């Protein structure tokens, strides 16, 4: 393992070698399958999240391809209504709950500690628990889908259709508990990101020197903390109890209200799409900086725009409900809010274009995806502003116009930067570069496919085609555009296939990358590719937003952290002054065990309340094990700061 650069010249290579060897022994995972199960390394867990979420992307994509095949011609007989309903529900649920949010937050789990110069996240076992819970959700949904118990009332599961009277069996219960698993997982990640970002930054990395990527992840983590409990209350608490134990949350005859579900769901649902979109915005900045060879213009504006977007996002949810009997005066407030949120997003776009303008763009594949992002996302943003108008929305709500809009913003604003990020950070994760040639094929197939699939859908919606229909009649005249959209869908699939081939080939045999193949400025590029288990041998002291681009400045490091046990350096929240040394947990099986208890609790609750009691009992055992493991560690030691930048411990 190579030492991080730059390093204080008072250390000789022998000391560095000894320290790194000891750190390697202390921080590496346990061997074999057991080691894989007990890992608390944020990079291992982040990798798992990314791979699982990408598999979910493929699954959701296959579902979409089958749906598009069914809709290619009128009155098609590939799928009946029941199968189609299960497919479109699973497509939406997979993409929103099992791919988009976990993928975006997984990028945070993997890269935030590296970017802030930390050794791990603040709560490594909670991190592992979050992943195992997410995996339980994945397996649960897909086993249910193949056992004919897949949910079939849409990813939004409106009552009364998803209530006990009109959705017999346990299909919707599967959906409700899947939401529980993904919501617990997201909260675990959010808590980790917030505390890691606030307390584990490298000394000197005050908040105004934090990378934009980290800012975006921090803002999104706060959004998760406020939004996810809403959907948990709605689905785990209200919908599940309506269905299982005769509650009347949504029963108008007994004082409940069908619209209550919509309010609670969309209070989560709208911030959810910004939870998907804002991390991608955080990925755009470093890519532009690196490939246009300049620091971004408007760092403060970008940060403020992220924060403003997050705040506004919580005030938009009724725009999903403009067709319902809500008073129009109230609806107009949400029109105004939904239009105003375009301003901070616009600020970000203008800052980026200004950065490209005053830089020298090198059109590598990540940069191509950024340009694709501008082309696609701005289109979606504009149709979004159109949809903010109540009068217009009443015509195109719940039609293919909205399908077009949502895919333009989620693919353009989420997936394009994400693919760019994959090409950009793949070398850091694997040590090898992805093929630029295949990447360009991927990009063009994807860009063309997305536009050919979704642009005609604007016209379909304006021509009267509603959403969530398993077929349509021939005289409607919707056949031609639907056929075109299906061809586009196959093109997207081809583009993604090229990417998968590229990733698999490059992982094994791609060109070796080295520490910093792109000559980027972030701290993650100051360690090896891939990073060692401890990330950095010595915490680096930071004095700017772009540490690796300040070559004429000395970068002292912090020495003295113990190498015989796992230890991390905790710094203050705003100015990142070293504050204490904290013991980090060793690998542990308790996160997996407790995730298993969660599985028993929530899946069992569908069938019998006794499972809840048993699972709680088993969980107590696991919580004791978790807690006792911690008490084997020594309390964090406060650090006395001598004059000067170096910190020496015992």
């Amino acid at each position, binding site marked *: 393992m190579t030492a991080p650069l730059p390093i204080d010249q008072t250390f000789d290579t022998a000391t560095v070698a000894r320290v790194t060897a000891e750190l390697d022994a202390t921080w590496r995972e346990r061997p074999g399958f057991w080691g894989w199960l007990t890992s608390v390394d944020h990079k291992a867990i982040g990798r798992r999240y990314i791979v699982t979420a990408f598999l979910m992307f493929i699954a959701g994509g296959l579902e979409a391809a089958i749906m598009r095949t069914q809709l290619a011609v009128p009155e098609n007989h590939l799928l009946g209504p029941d199968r189609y309903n299960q497919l479109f529900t699973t497509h939406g649920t997979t993409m929103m709950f099992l791919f988009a949010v976990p993928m975006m937050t997984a990028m945070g789990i993997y890269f935030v500690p590296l970017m802030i110069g930390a050794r791990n996240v603040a709560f490594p076992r909670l991190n592992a628990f979050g992943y195992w819970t997410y*995996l339980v959700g994945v397996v649960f949904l897909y086993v249910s889908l193949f*056992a*004919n*118990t897949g949910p079939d009332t849409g990813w939004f599961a409106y009552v009364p259709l998803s209530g006990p009277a009109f959705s017999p069996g346990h299909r919707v219960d599967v959906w409700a508990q899947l939401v529980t698993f993904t919501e617990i997982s997201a909260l675990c990640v959010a808590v980790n990101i917030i505390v890691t970002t606030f307390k584990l930054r490298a000394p000197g990395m005050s908040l105004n020197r934090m990378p934009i990527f980290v800012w975006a992840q921090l803002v999104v983590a706060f959004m998760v903390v406020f939004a996810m409990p809403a959907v948990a209350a709605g689905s785990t608490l209200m919908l599940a109890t309506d269905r299982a134990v005769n509650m009347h949350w949504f029963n108008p005859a007994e004082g409940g209200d069908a619209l209550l579900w919509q309010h609670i769901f969309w209070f989560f649902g709208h911030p959810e799409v910004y939870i998907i979109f804002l991390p991608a915005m955080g990925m755009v900045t470093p890519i532009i900086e690196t490939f246009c060879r300049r620091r971004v213009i408007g760092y403060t504006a970008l940060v403020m725009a992220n924060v403003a977007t997050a705040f506004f996002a919580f005030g938009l949810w009724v725009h999903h409900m403009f067709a319902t009997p809500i008073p129009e005066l109230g609806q107009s407030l949400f029109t105004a809010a939904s239009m105003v949120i375009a301003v901070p997003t616009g600020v970000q776009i203008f800052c980026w274009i200004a950065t490209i303008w005053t830089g020298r763009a090198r059109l590598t594949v990540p940069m191509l995806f950024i340009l694709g992002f501008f082309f696609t996302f701005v289109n979606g943003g504009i149709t979004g502003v159109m949809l903010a108008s109540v009068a217009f929305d009443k015509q195109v709500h719940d039609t293919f116009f909205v399908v077009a809009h949502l895919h333009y913003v989620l693919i353009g604003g989420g997936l394009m930067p994400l693919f760019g990020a994959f090409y950009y950070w793949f070398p850091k994760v694997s040590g090898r570069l992805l093929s630029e040639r295949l990447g360009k094929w991927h990009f063009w197939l994807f860009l063309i496919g997305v536009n050919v699939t979704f642009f005609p859908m604007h016209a379909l919606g304006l021509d009267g085609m509603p959403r969530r229909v398993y077929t349509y009649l021939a005289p409607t005249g919707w056949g031609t555009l639907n056929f075109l959209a299906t061809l586009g869908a196959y093109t997207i699939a081809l583009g993604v296939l090229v990417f998968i081939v590229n990733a698999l080939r490059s992982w094994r045999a791609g060109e070796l990358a080295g520490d910093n193949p792109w000559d980027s400025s972030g701290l993650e590029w100051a360690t090896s590719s891939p990073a060692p288990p401890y990330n950095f041998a010595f915490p680096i002291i930071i004095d700017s937003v772009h540490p690796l681009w300040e070559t004429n400045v000395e970068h002292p490091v912090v020495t003295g952290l113990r190498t015989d046990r796992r230890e991390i350096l905790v710094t203050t929240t705003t100015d990142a002054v070293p504050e204490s040394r904290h013991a980090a947990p060793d690998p542990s099986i308790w996160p997996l065990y407790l995730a298993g208890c969660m599985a028993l609790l929530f899946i069992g609750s569908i069938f019998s309340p006794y499972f809840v009691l048993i699972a709680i009992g088993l969980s107590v055992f696991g919580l004791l094990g978790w807690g006792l493991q911690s008490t084997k560690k020594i309390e964090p030691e406060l650090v006395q700061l001598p004059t000067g930048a170096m910190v020496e411990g015992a």
Partner: protein
Amino acid sequence: MTDSFRVTLVITLCALVLGCEREERRLNSQQPKGPQQMVTQVSLQPGPNVVADTEEGAFDDNAQGTTEGQILFAQMNCSGCHSNGGGGMGPPLMDDQWIYGSRPDQIFATIAEGRPNGMPAWKYKLNNQQIWQLVAYVRSLSGLTPKSARPGRDDHMNVKPAPMQTPNAKPKNSQSTTP
């Protein structure tokens, strides 16, 4: 990483082998047949006998069929005499007393052929599928069908606990020829 993929694949393949009868949605028009032999009170019968090949309820373990039965119960105004299962002019359906038997084919006969003192004959009004759905629902009211397939509450005023909350039951008194 590949380990987790393999584990997931194995679990998924196992699931493919499992069917799930409870969640089946029977949307085609295949008509399940009526019961083998009608439980008759007298040898005189109106119309030809309905003949079938099974004693088991076609929808007893099927959630959608049972819930369709719940919908039919409301639409065909069974509550007019049976009052949501509590009885009135007609006998209660939630208890464990079954005058004409609680077996699915016996209840089928009751609904299809009618019974003395006011139970109408539905056999040319509802088709076999609908009668079997009603059979499943009626049996669920007293807890005779598998719990996971029973319907939850409906969207009306809560006059009784949902069949899903009814404890499992075994029928006691029965004046039918077979218990």
